[in-house]
């Protein structure tokens, strides 16, 4: 055969037709959304973490006159401070709002004295305020003493790693890293072991009540992560029912955080491990049996290696969930500092946004790492799946089944118990003195925290998030999956769509403060509105929805689009007539996922809700903070009922819609 080689010349490019243009447009719009709602805020936050504010005293020079109006020699503020020692180095570190009163450099200042003051900058950047009037000049300015008392020095910004240096040299802040890692590590080990046992029982035994256990395991997803904290306070707190069981240990601190973390991460780990176990191959077990390997040996040589990717993935996901969680340590952490609490304290307590940004960046590290590992593992697992064939069929074994049932029952008691305690707490008049039942704790309007309005806001947020989130996510996934060519654009889009998973909610929230709470930003108008909450929630939960949509889209025939275009039909007709109906189950799944998470999330919204957009989940936090623990439990239970109801509705709706529009699935 003769050697042929491609003749020189440009590669043929097809002209863009209307469909292609529209698809690109839509993809562009959604990519733009992700840039504005995610990339830009993160970038702003990252750059802010490198900005420091400080008062540079050697940049200001004063001159003071005697009573006759004769001025003495100029003297710098730095020199004055050295003489007087009024401000320590710590005082001179500041933030964007920092002000230093000029009169503090003059102990014998009196605003009624005829003494006059002059002030100038020694360099071009020496800002100070006269009242609200910003001055920045190297010219001398003269002020009478009555005006001088309204003069404030302003800090100057500098860019550099000072914030990080300061963070790592502050032992209390630094110890939060240790604490966070410790808590997350312990919770991860416990959760993965417990969840593995549970998933193993569900997959590998012939015990009864599997459906019930599956349902129970999912319950923690329906409540905010801080709810177990409240239950633990009732059980083991200062006036707890079972306090004596702790033998002097305090539940406030690592113990409480770990128990609560196991509760709220359990379903996540369980789902991942169940998936991993369910792809096991029956033939491997038969091979092991024919080699007369003991059950124990088979477990370690077949089961564990087979599920390894799932276990790794579950461990990383759990670790990230715990280390980025804020609600639980806030409720039950006591004096025990963790990273997420630090961000909250820096931002809400000390208004030190830059330091908050530093902690956020640190919190990003484990999250990004976990995200990366999870992605790698998912890829491996997919290849494992396609190679497998005969699914494992458990055989009855009375002792083993009884053991499994026992274990699952124990976990079910733990999960149902926590929720039941919250329900009990919500219904009791005044623990522990008046145990009669009442609905007083549901009178949220009588307490701080937002009242019933907060609850309705949450419903509104969840509804809007479910609707807009699903539309945006599914449309985006469709465009990126079904567009022809345009590789670079699709690559960028995929990256943007995966990014939210690597960003903890609090970090996103803080980034939103930096980005949206800036009057120079035209999008500032959404700050403090319901819109920003919806945007933040949709963005925060974008990735899982995106992956769900992609999976569904990949399962439908790739040839539909070519057929439609050969029939000269626009793609949106195919989209509405075929793609959406066929993907309806996945679309419903995305919307319920968005709804439930919008109801329970605290971290993504705690920095950006406003007084008129207070939310139920945040109300739980704030009522607990104010000592109204029972109402907090009651509000938490409201979230639970709502989510449980939403799930039931979802189930019902799915069944109905499937029955009506998807008759084609059945033969």
């Amino acid at each position, binding site marked *: 055969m003769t050697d042929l080689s*491609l003749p020189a010349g440009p590669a043929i490019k097809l002209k863009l037709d209307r469909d*292609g243009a529209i698809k690109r447009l839509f993809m562009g719009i959604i990519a733009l959304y992700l840039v504005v709602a995610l990339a830009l805020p993160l970038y702003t936050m990252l750059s802010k973490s490198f900005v420091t504010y400080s008062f540079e005293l050697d940049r200001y020079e004063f001159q003071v006159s005697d009573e006759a109006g004769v001025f003495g020699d100029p003297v710098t503020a730095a020199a004055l401070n050295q003489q007087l020692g009024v401000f320590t180095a710590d005082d001179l570190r500041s933030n964007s709002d920092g002000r230093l009163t000029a009169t503090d450099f003059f102990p014998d200042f009196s605003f009624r004295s005829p003494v006059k003051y002059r002030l100038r900058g020694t360099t071009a950047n020496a800002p100070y305020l006269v009242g609200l009037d910003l001055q920045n000049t190297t010219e001398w300015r003269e002020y009478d003493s009555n005006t001088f008392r309204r003069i404030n020095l302003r800090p100057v910004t500098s860019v550099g790693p000072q914030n990080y240096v300061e963070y790592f040299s502050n032992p209390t802040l630094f110890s939060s890293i240790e604490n966070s890692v410790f808590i997350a590590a312990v919770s991860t080990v416990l959760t993965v072991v417990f969840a593995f046992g549970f998933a193993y029982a569900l997959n590998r035994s012939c015990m009864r009540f599997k459906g019930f256990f599956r349902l129970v395991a999912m319950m923690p997803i329906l409540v905010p992560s801080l709810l177990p904290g409240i239950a633990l306070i009732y059980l083991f707190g200062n006036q707890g029912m079972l306090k004596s069981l702790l033998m002097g240990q305090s539940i406030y601190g690592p113990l409480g955080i770990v128990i609560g973390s196991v509760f709220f991460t359990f379903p996540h780990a369980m789902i991942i491990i169940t998936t991993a176990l369910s792809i096991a191959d029956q033939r491997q077990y038969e091979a092991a049996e024919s080699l007369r390997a003991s059950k124990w040996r088979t477990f370690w040589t077949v089961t564990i290696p087979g599920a390894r990717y799932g276990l790794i993935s579950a461990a990383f996901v759990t670790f990230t969930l715990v280390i980025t969680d804020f609600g639980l340590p806030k409720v039950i952490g006591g004096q025990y500092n963790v990273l997420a609490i630090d961000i909250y304290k820096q931002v809400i307590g000390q208004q030190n946004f830059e330091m908050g940004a530093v902690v956020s960046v640190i919190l990003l590290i484990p999250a990004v790492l976990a995200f990366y590992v999870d992605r790698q593992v998912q890829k491996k697992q997919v290849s494992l799946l396609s190679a497998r064939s005969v699914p494992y069929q458990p055989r009855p074994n009375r002792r083993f089944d009884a053991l499994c049932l026992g274990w699952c029952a124990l976990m079910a008691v733990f999960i149902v118990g926590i929720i039941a305690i919250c329900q009990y707490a919500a219904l009791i008049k005044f623990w522990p003195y008046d145990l009669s039942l009442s609905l007083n704790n549901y009178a949220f309007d009588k307490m701080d925290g937002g009242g019933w309005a907060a609850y309705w806001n949450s419903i509104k947020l969840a509804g809007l998030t479910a609707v807009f989130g699903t539309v945006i996510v599914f449309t985006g996934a469709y465009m990126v999956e079904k567009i022809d060519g345009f590789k670079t654009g699709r690559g960028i889009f995929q990256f943007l769509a995966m990014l939210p998973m690597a960003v903890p909610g609090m970090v996103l929230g803080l980034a939103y403060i930096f980005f949206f709470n800036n009057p120079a930003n035209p999008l500032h108008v959404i700050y403090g509105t319901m819109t920003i909450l919806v945007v933040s929630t949709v963005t925060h939960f974008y990735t899982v929805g995106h992956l769900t949509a992609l999976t569904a889209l990949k399962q439908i025939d790739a040839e539909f689009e070519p057929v439609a275009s*050969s029939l*000269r039909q626009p793609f949106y007709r195919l989209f509405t007539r*075929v793609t959406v109906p066929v993907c309806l189950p996945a679309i419903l799944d995305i919307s319920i996922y968005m709804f439930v998470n919008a109801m329970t999330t605290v971290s993504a919204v705690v920095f950006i809700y406003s007084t008129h957009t207070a939310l139920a989940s945040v109300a739980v936090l704030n009522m607990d903070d104010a000592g109204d623990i029972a109402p907090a439990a009651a509000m938490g239970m409201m979230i639970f009922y709502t989510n449980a109801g939403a799930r039931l509705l979802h189930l019902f709706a799915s069944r109905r819609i499937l029955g009506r529009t998807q008759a*084609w699935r059945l033969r």
Partner: protein
Amino acid sequence: MMTSDHTGGAQAAGAAPYLQIKGLWKAFGDFLALKDINLDIEAGEFICFLGPSGCGKTTLLRAVAGLDPQTRGNIRQAGVDISSLPPSRRDYGIVFQSYALFPNLTVARNIAFGLENTGRPKAEIKARVAELLNLVGLPEQADKYPAQLSGGQQQRIALARAIAIKPGLLLLDEPLSALDAKVRVHLRHEIKGLQRKLGVTTIMVTHDQEEALSMADRIVVMNHGTVEQIGTPTQIYRHPATLFVADFIGETNKVASVFKGSRVALGNLSLSTAATGFAEGDAVTIAVRPEDVVPHSTAVMGEGGLNMLPVTITDMEFLGSFWRSHLRSPVLGDTPLIANFSINAVRRLDMKPGTDLVAELPAERVLVFPRGA
């Protein structure tokens, strides 16, 4: 929109072909999936792309459809250069191996998909759908969903959907390969009949030579991204242009040989052949199809006829309409010669394993190809 030509048949001499592919190349990264493809297709022709798996048939079809544009080269359809037109602006109907029927729409709605949204009145669409269902022989199935139909029925619905809009060109990518053998043979006739009736220019991709031979007006045999031969089924079968074609289509006996004085050497024998264009001493491969071997009784040996080989039957296999026989000849050494003998011939010469015969390889049936290109 291009006008479709349903008159079919051969074009007036001199007119440009309906579909013209010129200097077409396709590269996937460094890999060249199509190399300098040139092909003219006349209006109303039924063309098959035939070749082994991975030879580029689908790639060529998708280039014609604009689904995976070629890297270099031109395609003209009905006189219009469509090389860089997106699929939606080309004029074709397509049926995929998977049929790609919309699962949530009934059969009628599937077929109507390309008719709706075009300003046609509802009644007209309904009538057209009914007509198409009749045409593909499934008038009763209008309200069923695709999943309720058999594979062959789904196939026909996909075909009906593709031709509903009267495309100028019909593209079929292995339309029958997912069906079982019997349905496949039946559908071959149906599709061919339909195509003839509509006169629509059709390209079908297949790797099943029987399918290609029985359906195509002309076959394009492809290998490794190049066209090996274009011709009618009989041309391709009787006069394969390359050893690859001879080997790929039907069966052949192959023997290495050398060209000598307008004959080819076979052991100590030399065969005369109609082949030309070889120089003295060229290394060649001789190919003879099993059905071209003519049996004679050993009596003819003495006549010293041309191209006569003494053989012994080692094995015989009854294949219904003929006997496949394995022959051995001292001339060929260990290489067996396969021959298909008619039932008549077997009876006449009383053949059974062990029988000695003389096998004639008629000169005009001895194909000669250059060896080891």
